[in-house]
């Protein structure tokens, strides 16, 4: 009967793909297909990113010069608060796992879906409910707490805080659902032969991320709940006016929010490994070190939250311990950087757009990591804490790391997701604009901060004026790059060249064993994995077997072959055949 299915797919003009199968709006909204849920997340998150990004532009515009103003102090405070909350809780935390993790993870491990497809869909609805609560918060009043919600300031604010903390509580469940789903999927749903040592590193990254999501998110949930009770019932846990302790809030908050940084960066590490390996056509250097250091980071990440509080009034001893552990966590991150660079050695480096983003990441994340060491130094952090240096540092990590990796990953998997190629030239131009704009914006902020410019300032003294102007100019370059990406992405949806099955000549299952646009059930036959994810020397199918050039990694490929089920890839022994 398999042969019959093949015959059917060859006679049909347009074979069944997940995009032309069950296409009504209702079918999309009730889909249990991980790929469609990934796309639903993509659209929702793109909207959040756009709004939060425009808020950032408003902040930069306001700060352009000391004399120039487009809004009042109160509006400014609300603007940066919403920028922070939306970017952290509603965009970066879910971004890579929810979009690319959802789409790619089952494909990479050879599964038909995640372990709990209904829970997966529920997570999207919970996320949307969180978004709805956010909008409610904006409608009921002013929200100007900053994304950190420090008490007692936040407990003295109006009802908007209740809705916003409610939104974070609710969207936290989306995060837990995703994490839980991925852990079970990775443990239980791997294809035959897909041992732990053959897992693509993106899967390892997601696995480490999921552990953090599952373990850390409940704590922020209960913290937000306590904050709500503090506001409604005045229970006096965090507000000193009621006998509570504001430092306890900071401990609770950072117990989640520091590991949250690893929720944001670990999947980015995963993407990096995929990009570097594929575009260097070389086995990843130190596979085991990269995989295990992700898990090590996830674990150590729970023990460093106090480094946000060196000047808060916590005891000196705890500061010292937190500082020491902070350094230990820097080392596994460093190891990864060295391993990625070593992967290019004796490889065949192909500078396509995704690889440009990967190299950008190495550049930017190294700065992010080294400035992290700087703010982790106890004596120096006292000077740098709560200045623009910290702002610059976490943008280098969050945006220069996470978002750049997401962009690289989106370009890399775009052909698989949409079945279309984007415009390579425009892609390279946009990657350049983003890289230059990013550095102009945020490197100046590092200097501003070490010069003493405090964060969250509506006005500033004149000696900072020049650098603020440069930073604002940089933000416009950055924004133009991002809008260019949006432009050619939309264009490619309709007019892009149709993508071949494996345009990058990658060796992981989603490229080798899945049609150009995946089937609703992913694989036409369960794959049997016989080699590591980056063993290009064993991956004959990547090179089109005899080298006929059809998938040799030049973005080309004959149109006739693009939707045909892959033949060269090994499949699991067929039981009905043997029976």
């Amino acid at each position, binding site marked *: 009967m398999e042969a019959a299915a093949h015959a059917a797919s060859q006679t049909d003009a347009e074979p069944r793909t997940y995009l032309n199968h069950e296409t009504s709006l209702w079918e999309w909204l009730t889909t249990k297909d991980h790929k469609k849920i990934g796309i639903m997340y993509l659209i929702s998150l793109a909207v959040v990113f756009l709004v939060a990004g425009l808020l950032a532009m408003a902040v930069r515009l306001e700060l352009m010069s000391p004399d120039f103003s487009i809004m009042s102090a109160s509006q400014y405070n609300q603007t940066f608060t919403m920028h922070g909350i939306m970017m952290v809780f509603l965009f970066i935390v879910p971004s890579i796992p929810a979009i690319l993790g959802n789409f790619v993870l089952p494909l990479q491990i050879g599964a038909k879906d995640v372990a709990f497809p209904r829970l997966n869909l529920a997570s999207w609805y919970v996320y949307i409910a969180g978004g709805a609560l956010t909008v409610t918060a904006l409608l009921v009043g002013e929200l*100007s707490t*900053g994304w950190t919600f*420090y008490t*007692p*300031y936040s407990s003295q604010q109006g009802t908007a805080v209740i809705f916003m903390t409610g939104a974070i509580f609710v969207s936290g469940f989306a995060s837990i659902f995703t994490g839980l789903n991925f852990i079970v999927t990775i443990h239980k749903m791997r294809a035959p032969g897909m041992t732990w040592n053959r897992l693509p590193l993106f899967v390892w990254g997601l696995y480490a991320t999921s552990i953090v999501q599952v373990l850390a998110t409940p704590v922020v949930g209960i913290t937000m709940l306590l904050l709500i009770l503090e506001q409604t019932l005045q229970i006096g846990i965090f507000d000193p*006016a009621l006998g509570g302790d*504001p430092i306890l809030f900071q401990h609770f908050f950072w117990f989640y929010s520091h590991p949250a940084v690893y929720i944001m960066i670990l999947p980015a590490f995963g993407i990096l490994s995929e990009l570097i390996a594929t575009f260097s*056509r070389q086995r990843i*250097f130190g596979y085991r*070190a990269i995989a295990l250091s992700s898990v090590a980071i996830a674990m150590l990440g729970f023990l460093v939250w106090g480094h946000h509080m060196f*000047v*808060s*009034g916590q005891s*000196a001893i705890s*500061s*010292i311990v937190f*500082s020491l552990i902070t*350094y230990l966590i820097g080392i596994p991150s*460093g*190891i990864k950087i060295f*391993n990625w*660079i*070593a992967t*290019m*050695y*004796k*490889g*065949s*480096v*192909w500078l396509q757009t995704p690889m440009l983003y990967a*190299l950008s990441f*190495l550049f930017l994340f*190294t*700065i992010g990591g080294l400035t992290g*060491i*700087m703010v*982790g*130094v*106890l*004596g*120096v*952090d*006292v*000077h740098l*804490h*709560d*200045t623009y240096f910290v702002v610059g540092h976490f943008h280098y990590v969050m945006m220069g790391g996470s978002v750049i990796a997401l962009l690289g990953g989106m370009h890399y998997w775009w052909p698989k997701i949409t079945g279309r190629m984007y415009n390579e030239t425009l892609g390279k131009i946009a990657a350049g604009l983003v890289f230059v704009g990013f550095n102009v914006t945020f490197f100046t902020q590092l*200097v501003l901060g*070490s010069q*003493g410019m*405090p964060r*969250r300032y509506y*006005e*500033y003294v004149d000696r900072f004026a020049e650098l603020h102007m440069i930073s604002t100019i940089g933000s416009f370059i950055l924004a133009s790059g991002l809008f260019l990406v949006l432009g050619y992405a939309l264009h490619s949806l309709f007019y892009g060249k149709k993508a071949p099955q494996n345009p990058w*000549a990658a060796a992981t299952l989603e490229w080798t064993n899945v049609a150009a646009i995946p089937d609703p059930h992913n694989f036409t036959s369960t794959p049997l994995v016989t080699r590591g994810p980056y063993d*290009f*020397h064993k991956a004959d199918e990547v090179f089109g077997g005899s080298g006929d050039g059809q998938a*040799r*990694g*030049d973005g080309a490929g004959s149109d006739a072959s693009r939707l045909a089920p892959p033949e060269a890839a090994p499949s699991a022994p067929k039981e009905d055949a043997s029976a």
Partner: protein
Amino acid sequence: MNDSGTFWLPEAASTVAAEVDGLFYFVYWASAIIFVGVVAAMIYLAYKYRRRDPNDRPEPVEESRLLEISWIVVPTILVLLVFTWGFQTFVTLQTAPPNAYQIQGQAYSYGWNFEYPEGAQTTDELYLPADRPVQVRLSSREGDVLHSFYLPQFRVKQDVLPNRYTSVWFEATEPGTYELFCTEYCGVGHSQMLGEVNVLPADEFDEWVAEAGINEDELSLVELGELQYQRNGCQGCHSLDGSAMAGPTFQGLYASERAFADASSVEADENYLRESIIEPDAKVVEGYGSGIMPSFAHLSERDVTALVEFIKEQQ
């Protein structure tokens, strides 16, 4: 303030600043070397092994155990070195000499009050003796929010909490004027919560502090009003020059017609001013929010009268 800072750091004006800067630049240069190395290796490898043919099929590279161990061990030694150094500086920052001169600091939204042992009080201005260790004991006003006391030229910072004391110490080295910033976000006036640090030579400071111990009873009502205006932080929200802040300006306030949110209006006489100080939300001028200004009912009768007289003077 003279402009003797470097590209990265502002001028250094305390004893601990030199130590912090030394550490900063050590980490900075170590980081710069690592960064340049990483980027150079990246560019070199990306160029040297660039793809020459779509069918390139490089041989797999065997991992080098030695290389991997070395890039684990070397950074570990480096960060432990930096940690130890940073830890020592931190201990210096945390441990005030026992003979330090004590100043009480109180933060409020949005300003700073300082009280000296000799009885002098200042607002948004901190006077310090040069070459003498000083400890500032900080707290935030009852019911107020978190603030943070930051002297960039001194490289010290400390969060300020309500209902609790924290403290910070330093020793100024150069007479001059320096900046005081609030670095813990505290609301609409956060970026206006600035102060000025005046470091005086030790003998000048002693002179100043002896003179500045003011006897309130000898002040005229208007002078006392001005003092109360500063002490209670009125200037955080009410300007004297007509500029709009969180509250209405005091300029030309007296005897003007006040329009309220409920469309009523009244002439601002002495009783109106008094009521607005003691019960701010009784009448709220249109365009301003209620619940923002706290009540100042705790002020003495003479202080309130003095404030009213002071406001009357602002024409």
